[in-house]
């Protein structure tokens, strides 16, 4: 545990790290949502479905 006083520099760095973390988290959510939307529209098929229909992919 650090007893040093929090410097403005540390606050800015914390904000930056939180911002990047949230942006990456949002990106994961977006890619997940996009995958669900595309799967529902039939643009992406699950591998098992594709193989059973005789295709190697989509």
């Amino acid at each position: 545990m650090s007893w040093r006083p929090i410097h403005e520099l540390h606050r800015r760095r914390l904000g930056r790290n939180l911002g990047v973390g949230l942006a990456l988290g949002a990106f994961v959510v977006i890619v997940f949502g996009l995958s669900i939307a595309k799967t529902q529209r039939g643009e992406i098929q699950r591998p098992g479905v594709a193989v059973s229909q005789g295709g190697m992919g989509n």
Partner: protein
Amino acid sequence: MTDASINASSTPEREAGFGDYFALLKPRVMSLVVFTAFVGLVAAPVHVNPIVGFCAILFIAIGGGASGALNMWWDADIDMVMKRTKNRPIPLGRVDRVEALQIGMALSGLSVMMLALATNIFAGAFLAFTIFFYVVIYTIWLKRATPQNIVIGGAAGAFPPVIGWLAATGSMSIEPWLMFALTFLWTPPHFWALALFMRSDYDDAGVPMLTVTHGRRSTRRHILAYTVLLVVFAVGAAFSGIGGPIYLAVSVVLNALFLRGAWRIFRRDEVASEADNFKVERGFFKLSLLYLFLHFGAILMEAVLKPYGFGGWG
């Protein structure tokens, strides 16, 4: 980075916060990109899944932001000189030039790839072309070489509705190019009116502006010429697939006012303008902001009302 190196090499002024990286993406320009791309996407005559549509707009916006970061990387030298830009993250020393280049390149790649995956390869390719056009053709090549830089920069800013349309349909037609023409032909009168009443510091930075290279009389002529061309395309768009009675009514009123403003600017001389502190030029500039917003707003209204039997020509 260790604490020792922080103490040795960094000062609070040089440490970037998240907001500094966000500022690299030119959020104000991004808002225009988002709005016009959204209108292009909604005006397209196909249904777009809301999640796919959201992703398309998001990645077009990130692509626009990436262009902004690359623009700040290249223009860091003149940004330090000009009053309007000296508070950007690079001139302030918060973000390093190389960092801006890296962020711009990374976000360009990400946005193009994700837009292509989310929608179609044509939209992704067109976004890549737009970034290339803005950064290489405009920023690096022509911005400092010709007083027509505003026209070329206007083209880059006019592509988003075309990308939005492409993202929705995967194919091209005349309507997105009418939206392109709207922003493209609107940009020169908008910026040259600003250049007339703002004693621009572009001159100190060595960027050729029409007011300086060809004189203020010539700038007034250019404003009128581009406005006449703009009126033709803006009103003509009313009779295309994106137009309708609402758009026609809005467009006729706005274009009449805009043409009147351009004519008054053309007729004035510097003495008259100085006498009332550029009242007409300032009014024209304010009107230009409303002009673009209401035209795209009217296109949006037509598209939104179409399913209910109100939008379009029926």
